């Protein structure tokens, strides 16, 4: 816990991370100053793109002691304002799941390679990012905790499967290698409470370590203070649950 007599400082900047296909993608990297060791966090941005909220989010995690990297998952779509890039990503059917998993895995390995890593790395994502972190932690070893905030389309009908999204994340549940914290809103439609219940049943059936919280009076995106779905009470409680969960599993 931070107290007012503590020294605090961080560096936050854009770096590049070389991913599996050899591409160097941009990433925002915010980390506490000092020798560490620090646990790491990989952030998967939401559908509206690699935007200001995610930069702020990275600095928030750094403030709480995590070396935090937020890769631009739309890097290959091109570069313009975040909303224009996101619109273009949507027009081409989103990004391939394999690519997102690869980019998140490379980011995780980057954090593990740091000399002041404590050897633990978690992942956090909201909206499509919640789906992406569940997918990454289910398909790639090396994540120690994952936070899924209202990730839609973890549960998918066969009719929703596409070339970019060929397998529903829930179908990889047996491979999930770390505990999951899930935060959802009762008024959300993607994921709906029914879909969250299906996901929870799968986690239970596979004996996975999970903690799900369904908030009344909240829908999709209730952490986004700059948008109408923001719900102050639920967001404050949600952030407390995020940091308590990470402290337990990442140290």
């Amino acid at each position, binding site marked *: 816990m931070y107290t007012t007599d503590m020294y605090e400082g961080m560096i936050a900047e854009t770096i590049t991370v070389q991913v599996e296909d050899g591409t160097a993608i941009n990433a925002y990297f915010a980390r506490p100053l000092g020798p560490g060791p620090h646990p790491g966090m990989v952030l998967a941005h939401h*559908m*509206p793109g690699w935007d200001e909220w995610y930069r702020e989010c990275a600095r928030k995690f750094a403030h709480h002691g995590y070396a935090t990297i937020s890769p631009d998952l739309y890097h290959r*779509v*091109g*570069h*313009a304002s975040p*909303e*224009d*890039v*996101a*619109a*273009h*990503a*949507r*027009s081409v*059917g*989103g990004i391939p799941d394999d690519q997102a998993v690869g980019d998140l895995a490379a980011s995780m390995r980057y954090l593990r390679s740091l000399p002041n890593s404590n050897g633990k790395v978690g992942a956090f994502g909201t*909206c*499509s990012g919640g789906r992406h972190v569940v997918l990454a932690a289910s398909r790639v070893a090396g994540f120690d905790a994952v936070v899924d905030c209202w990730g*839609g*389309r973890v549960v998918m009908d066969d009719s*929703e499967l*596409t070339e970019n*999204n060929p397998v529903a994340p829930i179908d990889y549940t047996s491979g999930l290698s770390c505990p999951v914290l899930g935060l959802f809103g009762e008024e*959300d*439609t*993607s994921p709906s409470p029914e879909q969250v219940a299906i996901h929870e049943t799968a986690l239970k059936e596979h004996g996975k370590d999970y903690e799900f919280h369904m908030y009344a009076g909240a*829908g*999709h*995106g209730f952490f986004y203070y700059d*948008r*109408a*779905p923001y719900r102050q009470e639920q967001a404050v409680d949600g952030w407390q649950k995020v940091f308590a969960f990470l402290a337990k599993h990442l140290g």
Partner: protein
Amino acid sequence: MCTMIAEKTAVTGCGKGTPGWMQINQVTVSYDHPSEMTLEHALNIDFVDASQKLGPRIAVELTPDSAQRLVELINVALEKGAVVDPVAFE
């Protein structure tokens, strides 16, 4: 892409935005998170010149009800247009 509901088609036309008039040859219609409207989901329309990757974009975000009324109005205008200008509709 939380809903991933996005349909795309080629079109021929022009649009006017901040940079002025531009060629339009692709439109994407999606029902997903809007950028500006204070809704979880909206009917979003993006008119672009697909030859310019991430070039100017004419974006519209509508409530579902507004989008339905727009569809109705477009159909009404097209029906009336077909009466006065039948050759153009062949």
